[in-house]
């Protein structure tokens, strides 16, 4: 793929141009001191050194609440509802690109989720090489330091005012060239990008699995009866925060509301989470995961084994968001997997 070198001074023009036909989101510092992707506006200071976006990018592709159908109560006819605003996510770290790729795979296979498919198609992903690493992140040790695909452009900051931009799609290249001809990166610039990656990988080493991540499914298959599940889940508030902030969690509930005339209505989906007490409860109140430890264990199995068995990757990209979001301090895939590894160490 072609790589171009783009300079900071070109960005305002590009952003201006893009925002004419896309909702453009860029990384910025929030009032509370954290970073997030926020709507771009002129003179907004871009947080080039953001460690992690507070909210995962899934909200742009799989919003917290999304209408699925409208219905008429009398005729019992229903119509699909599709919303897919054109949008550009500028500054998606590779682990989040990987998370998007995973959502693509899981929601588009089988009976494709048309609502997701359409939103995804209307979304331009501009990857961005991180400069810093969040204290709770461990993406480098779960195979999520680089994304081989899933982006339209991939930006790497190679100097105070210069970027290399790797093209991932024709759409990306077209967007990049909207303000005039592009300069292919020199070998030196590409070397700069390589070094930038090496620098952040070095920083990312502070936190990591003590074993090769590909061992995780095997590790878990030995750990169903581990006392760890109960030990940690005793503190579980069943608040679902770990699920909801996770860039790869996509479970949802379906609910509906009639309009005030009681003639028509909307059926919509809302983010749900397997850590919530009633997630597996059926009518008649039988709960297939009645205990906190059942739910807690399920989440780690899903992240470390079930997803892997389906697509060959962990369901955890190591972003560290759940570690921070868990007020009880028990959501921590790194700690859980490492402790299980210690527990079963004598077997290796």
């Amino acid at each position, binding site marked *: 793929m072609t790589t171009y070198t783009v300079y900071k001074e070109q960005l305002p023009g590009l952003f201006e141009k893009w925002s004419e036909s896309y909702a453009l989101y860029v990384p910025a510092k929030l009032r509370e001191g954290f970073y997030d992707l926020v709507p771009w506006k002129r003179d907004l200071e871009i947080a080039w050194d953001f460690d992690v976006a507070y909210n995962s990018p899934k909200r742009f592709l799989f919003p917290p609440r999304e209408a699925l159908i409208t219905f008429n109560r009398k005729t019992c006819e229903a119509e699909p509802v599709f919303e897919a605003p054109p949008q550009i996510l500028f500054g998606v770290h590779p682990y989040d690109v990987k998370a998007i790729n995973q959502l693509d795979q899981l929601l588009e296979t089988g009976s494709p989720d048309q609502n997701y498919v359409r939103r995804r198609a209307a979304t331009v992903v501009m990857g961005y090489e991180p400069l810093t690493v969040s204290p709770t992140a461990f993406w480098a040790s779960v195979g999520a330091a680089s994304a081989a695909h899933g982006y339209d452009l991939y930006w790497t900051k190679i100097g105070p005012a210069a970027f290399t931009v790797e093209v991932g799609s024709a759409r990306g290249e077209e967007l990049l060239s909207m303000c005039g001809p592009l300069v292919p990166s020199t070998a030196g610039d590409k070397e700069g990008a390589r070094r930038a990656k090496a620098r952040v990988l070095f920083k990312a080493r502070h936190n990591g699995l003590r074993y090769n991540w590909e061992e995780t499914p095997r590790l878990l298959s030995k750990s169903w009866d581990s006392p760890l599940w109960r030990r940690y889940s005793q503190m579980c508030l*069943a608040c679902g*925060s770990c699920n909801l902030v996770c860039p790869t969690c996509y479970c949802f509930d379906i609910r509906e509301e009639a309009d005030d*005339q*009681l003639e028509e209505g909307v059926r919509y989906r809302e983010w749900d989470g397997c850590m*919530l007490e009633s997630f597996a409860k059926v009518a008649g109140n039988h709960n297939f995961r009645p205990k906190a430890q059942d739910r807690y264990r399920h989440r780690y199995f899903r992240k470390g084994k079930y997803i892997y068995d389906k697509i060959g990757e962990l369901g955890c990209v190591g972003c560290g968001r759940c570690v921070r*979001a868990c007020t009880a301090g028990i959501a921590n895939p790194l700690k859980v997997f490492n402790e299980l590894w210690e527990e079963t160490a004598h077997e290796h």
Partner: protein
Amino acid sequence: MAKPKIAFFDFAGCEGDQLQIANLEERLLDILGHVEVVSFREVATGHSDDYDVAFVEGSITRPEDEIRLKEIRKNAKVLVALGACAAIGGINCLKNFLAENVYREEVYGGQARWFSTYAARPLKSVVKVDAEIPGCPIDPTEFARITKELLLGRSPWIPDFPVCVECKQAGNVCRYEMGRMCLGIITRAGCKAACVSQGAHCWGCRGLVPGANLDAARIVMDRPGTSRKAIQDLLRFFLGDTGAAL
């Protein structure tokens, strides 16, 4: 089919929930078009004892309230607790942490012996409650939805998960990450995390979420920089009638 008759009643409370309903304005006209309102002090005069659905606001704070509430229960096919005071006892329960002579003296001064009053309690301590619309004040859109569900013959649904869910959906920065206290971790959702989204923290006005892990919550709240007194005060503010308040 005859329109179901509905009536509104209030006990100890500020009638703020009925005001919230009145604030629905045009929507209220549509929704009330499906029913016959026989009693609604906040928007109209007149009263009748012939009703199917009773929306009851306020908590029970006097023995004679019980008699009236039981009468309402007898007349109504469906009794809905409206707002925090009715559903969970609400802030009226703050007085339950004081000695009776202290709060009587505080409120009524020298005339205290002329007034009857006892520990504040939610409706469900006195009669069977069929549905709750919790919150202080209630969310008018939730009132609208639940009323429609009742009209459609559905047992009303209210969230059975904590506020954290809606807070994360809203993309808020967690109060605990800002070194602040918040009751969202044990409070029933349904408010769309309104207070946190406005920069405040959750006060617990929608009551405890079913199965709330209070032991864990106390450990989570007990952080450096937070006084035990502050935690106790917050837990008593709305949750005085629950096991959360000590």
